[in-house]
């Protein structure tokens, strides 16, 4: 079998999925929202009228055509800061989720396929790690590592690897005893072939849906840490931090809070709609972990 054939299949799936996406309005909306934010994350700095730290105009300016989201107490343009912040939050959450997916996938495949003592030990250890509520664990880790972009990614990875591992492990267990896996064993296939060519395609739906959901939680987590003042450090524009800083101006400058909050809500809802659509199209009945 050529690697091409696998990609053919994937391409075929993408085309039919594309059609299905277009037929489901909610999924389409979700996809467009996610696409918009990805676009902003990549090209945002070119679009944003001002720099994030720059004093763009008079402070405390309500939204106008010149400052669509208004300016904050220091006269910085909220619109530009929200756009700059897209890159920050999508980058950190995306990278963290991506690394967690890669590690979780490999560990999950291996312990799901082999089972036994290794599975027992790793599962128990991960369960114990999950015994610490995620945000508490994040706080302790940030306290340990000190606030930095690296710390935020590390926090996301440490929290998510056990969860993704668990999902992949159970998806692997579902197909581990299938006839086609046993047929592969009987023709003497290597472990790597069985894991990555026979099992991997079957766990991809679970992985895709889980990755999308994890991504949205990662955005939440990053924003929450920012809100608590422990995430991205100033002057970097972080949506959570922007909301936190707006608290004292809530009555007078409501736009300082409203727009970053709306950005978070829009992005997270978009990802969730996208994930729901993915779940429907891939016919994956996931369980919540």
């Amino acid at each position, binding site marked *: *079998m050529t690697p091409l*054939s*696998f990609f053919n*299949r994937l391409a075929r799936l993408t085309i039919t999925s594309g059609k299905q996406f277009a037929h489901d309005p909610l999924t389409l909306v979700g996809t467009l929202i996610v696409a918009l934010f990805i676009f902003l994350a990549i090209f945002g700095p070119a679009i944003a009228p001002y720099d994030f730290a720059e004093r763009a105009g008079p402070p405390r300016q309500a939204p106008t055509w010149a400052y669509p989201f208004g300016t904050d107490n220091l006269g910085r343009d909220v619109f530009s800061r929200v756009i700059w912040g897209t890159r920050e939050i999508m980058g950190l959450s995306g990278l963290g989720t991506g690394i967690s997916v890669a590690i979780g996938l490999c560990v999950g495949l291996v312990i799901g396929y082999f089972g036994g003592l290794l599975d*027992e030990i790793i599962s128990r250890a991960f369960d114990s790690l999950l015994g610490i509520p995620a945000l508490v664990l994040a706080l302790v880790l940030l306290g340990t590592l000190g606030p930095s972009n690296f710390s935020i990614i590390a926090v996301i990875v440490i929290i998510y690897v056990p969860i993704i591992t668990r999902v992949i492990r159970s998806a692997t267990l579902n*197909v581990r005893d*299938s*006839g*086609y896996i*046993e*047929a592969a*064993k*009987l*023709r*003497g*296939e290597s472990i790597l072939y069985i894991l990555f060519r*026979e099992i991997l*395609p*079957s766990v991809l739906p679970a992985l895709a849906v889980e990755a999308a959901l994890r991504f949205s939680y990662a955005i939440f987590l990053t924003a929450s840490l920012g809100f608590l003042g422990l995430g991205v450090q100033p002057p970097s524009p972080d949506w959570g931090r922007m909301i936190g800083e707006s608290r004292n101006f809530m009555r007078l400058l409501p736009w300082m809070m409203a727009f970053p909050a709306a950005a978070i809500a829009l992005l997270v809802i978009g990802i969730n709609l996208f994930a729901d659509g993915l779940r429907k199209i891939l016919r994956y009945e996931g369980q919540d972990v």
Partner: protein
Amino acid sequence: MSDIQPVIAAHNLSVDYRLNKVWLNAVRDITLHINPLQIHGLVGESGSGKSTLALALMNYLAANGRISSGEVLLEGDDLTQKSVNEMRQIWGSKISLVPQDALSSLNPSYTIGNQIAEVFQHHAKTRINTRQLVIDMLRRVGIADPEVVAQRYPHQLSGGMQQRVTIAMALITQPRLLVLDEPTTALDVTTQAVILDLFRDLIRDHNAAGLYVSHDLGVVAQLCDDVTVMYAGEIMESASVETLFKRPTHPYTAGLLASLPKPTQDTETRLPTMPGVQPSLADRPAGCVFAPRCPIALQLCADQKPALEIMRDGHTIRCHRWREIDAGEISPLHDIDEKITSERPPDIDYIMTAEGMHKYFDENTLWDRITRRKDRYVHAVDDADLRIRARSTLGLVGESGSGKTTLARIIVGLETADSGKMHLLEKSLANHLSARSRDLLRELQMVFQNPNDTLNPYHTVGQALARTIRRLSDKPISKQQVQERVIDLLKSVRLSADYADRYPEELSGGEKQRVAIARAFAANPALVVADEPTSALDVSVQAVILNLLKDLRAQEGASYLLISHDLAAVAYLADWIAVMYLGQIVEVGDTEDVYDAPSHPYTEALVSAIPEPDPTLKRKQIRLDGDIPSARNIPPGCRFHTRCPRYLGDICKTKAPPWRDAGDGHLIRCHIEIDELIRLQSAEEAGTV
């Protein structure tokens, strides 16, 4: 027609389903009736609409279903005019259902007693203590300790017991009609035989009538008075069992009956088959639904739907050409292919031997190990020997839990034996799969039970075959050669070359199994292990697969180890049979010898439990008490002594029985001597038949 009022009667009943916003006809123009005390069989392959019809007769439809025309009269009262709330007065009191899957049809969170009592209390509108009533009912369905069972939860009972409970639940309100939806399909033959006896007696005792839905022609022949054959949502033929099984007239009925494997057929006979598959709901033909597969279809059949006609009293048929068939002018069957001639007949040399195989499954948890209660071992295979002759088929039979599948998996290496020695082609065969050389892997392949997971859904048929060919090839092989071999293999399983580009989801169950067989033969193996290769398939598809297995053996000269619970299929295909019970082989011999006296008492019971598709044939009735004991807790002495109808005495309890030689390689592991077995078994045969 008689003057008796039927318990249930349907007239021109049609049922539609709404699928993708379109109403599709699922069941069309059904007319049938069931008289009191009668059991009516409703037979059809999957997709024939038999379950839909059975539920429609209860005026119960899926959320997307509707009765589009016709009426259903329960003792003269039209059910189709009733609302759901009115039906609730009738369901469970006048009509009861015995479901297919007893365990999932019982609520896991309530006791058996509670669930039986609630039907009675609801319909009798009483809160009285029904405990005694429930216990009596449980006793009547043959449960030995009803007081205990009433306190149990569903998951604590065996499959046979669960099915008895659903029968008790159905009968406690003394219903007029019992709808039995494949109630024995999930059970072992031995248990099935006992449950069928029970139905017969209980329906008569309760003055009720029964509708028995089944795909199993044998069960229907043995149990029912009348039978209706369905195909693609329509009645094809309906008659008394004697008429239908003796003189099937409709080409579908005739084809179905002919495609059943019969143990008396020799190994060179091919089974008659019907080409094609049953059409799905969306693409049923406009004319006669069976026309595309019918050997005697005319242009008329494709154009015009035949009406349901009365041939003679009690025998109806839907066929344009029944008069010609009835008069014997034409045959409703496809011509049977010529016999299979094997270039290389079976050999007496063994190609594969397994001696003293053991496999224990360690169910001890970490907790058991800590507390040193390491007693949870499942003795799945416990000192089993097996020998397979070259170019022959060995059938391995036994109830579920006998260890037959584990033994097969040990041989191919998917389970690692704890001890024992195996040889293949006179070379030592390692227990560990990873220790086996490429050369040995090539010689030993397997066909799996479930067609739906036998092929990777993400690889095309061509990819799956090509990969196997390349992996198992003994010399470097060019792309061109691989492709040619793929086409050859597809041809050998009667699939066209364009199947190579298809994904498994585009294949029917029978086609998937054919690809799986092609994959097993990719590298000309010496031995193919087939684990229940046809048990998930319909009768007419099974015949195709069985023929194919026979043809391939003749062409390729491979041997088979065939594992099956279906003795008829095994007997049809196998030259030799080994019978397994609780991890041990108890009898081995050539097929005919095993079928006839003398045989091990367990084999005798197994054979007697097969429901023969011939209502006139009444075999001797040997029924086994209870279920197969747990392999965690194997009885001492002869393992079969707890259920043995020919139990001798203490010797069976204490001493393992010896192998007794009945000649020609026919061996029986029993305390009773061969001559004595012959005397006992043939005496009974003469007495009862």
